[in-house]
């Protein structure tokens, strides 16, 4: 949920940007991370752990812990808490470890 009024801070949001998450279209703002845009839309589950298939979300939000890995524009294991949102990004929840090398590449 986005904060509209705050006693100390003023949030200057950038231009609106469209992106998709698991095939559905969403809107975020320029300058924010993918994690911020997903949280604003109420999405907190980012991936499924490789072995026990547990849901995973954000933990540190500064790129330290790798809890938030997702597939972005086809590239797996992107730390979306530090990756900025860009127009037209295709964001997908990641299952397992992600395939970096596909046969034929």
């Amino acid at each position, binding site marked *: 949920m986005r904060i509209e009024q705050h006693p100390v801070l003023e949030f200057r949001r950038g231009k609106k940007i469209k992106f998709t998450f698991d095939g559905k279209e969403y809107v975020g703002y320029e300058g924010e991370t993918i994690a911020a845009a997903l*949280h604003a839309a109420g999405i907190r589950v980012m991936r499924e752990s490789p072995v026990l298939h547990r849901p995973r979300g954000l933990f540190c939000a500064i790129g*330290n812990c790798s809890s938030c890995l997702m597939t972005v524009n086809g590239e797996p294991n992107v730390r979306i808490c530090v990756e900025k949102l860009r127009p037209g990004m295709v964001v997908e929840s990641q299952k397992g470890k992600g395939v970096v090398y596909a046969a034929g590449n």
Partner: protein
Amino acid sequence: MQQEISFVEIAVIGGGPAGLCAALEAANAGARVILLDRQDRLGGQLIKQTHRFFGSRSHRASERGINIAAELTGQVISHPLIEALTGATVFGFYEDGVLGVEQEGRVFYLKPSRVIVATGASEKNLAFPNNDLPGIYGAGAVQTLVNVYGILPGKRVLMVGAGNIGVIVSYQLLQAGMEVAAIVEAAPRIGAYWVHAAKVRRAGVPIYTSHTIKRAYGEQEVEEAVIWQLDEQGQPVPGTEKDFAVDTICLSVGLSPLVELLAQAGCRLAYVPQLGGHVPLRDANLQTTVPGVYVAGDAAGVEEASAAMMEGALAGLHAAYSLGYGRAGYEDRRRELQHQLDSLRSGPVGEKIRTGLARVLAG
């Protein structure tokens, strides 16, 4: 594959208060500095500190962290001898002293004559069933979402830890419009300064001391948290459980220094609980056991922002001096900085840090 390596005088890794002050001190002495930070805003943890600082004596106490960050960042960016690269992650520190850097998909290598590592710290987790559910965050993570991006992670939160960070973040979440169900603290006493604790108590938030979290419940995300009491030996007391319907749990149970790059560089580390975990051995100039490699700030031991700034300045000063810069006035400046740092750490508040430092200071 042929890789190009750039030679630089001083590289500072991390643009928090420690790194910013290190860069400024070294550049003011005349050295050329490259400052690297993986975020795209300089300032480190300070960019989310909207509260008036708890601080020691005159050292910027009662200023807001965001303002300190803005001031230092301005000086760094306009300094002719500092090149500041943001969005630039240092991913490797090789044996031959080469740093690997990634910036927006581009990879390049630097061979600095001196390196100052000011990478800060990472938040600790806590072991309890379901501690991996989405909706459970480090308190700093929630602070980033709320204070930097203006986004609430949920509606109702349980805060674990009543130290300064836990209590301050609780208050900031209230300010931002979240409901704080309770704060739990394993110790028998609240660790935070009383001014901050009083604010959340006035807002009606209960603080349960001698309590900890027992487990979280939820299918895909957190839906409920259970806490229980701890006896004098710190053992949980069955039958004292309390349930809270919350969609968010914040853990504020300490930080541990980020020392991976120092470990890669071959710096000797020691486990020192008073400083937050593994930290490098260093001398009074913050030089580690690898000549030319320095550490400063939370990476050297979890403390607070003023200490980070002074350690950064000391490291920057010495790094520049060892390259032949800033010879005039060096001793005076060094003594002045050391004196400020010592006075910051004096008295009962600094006791823990002093004990920890005694175990890592050599030479």
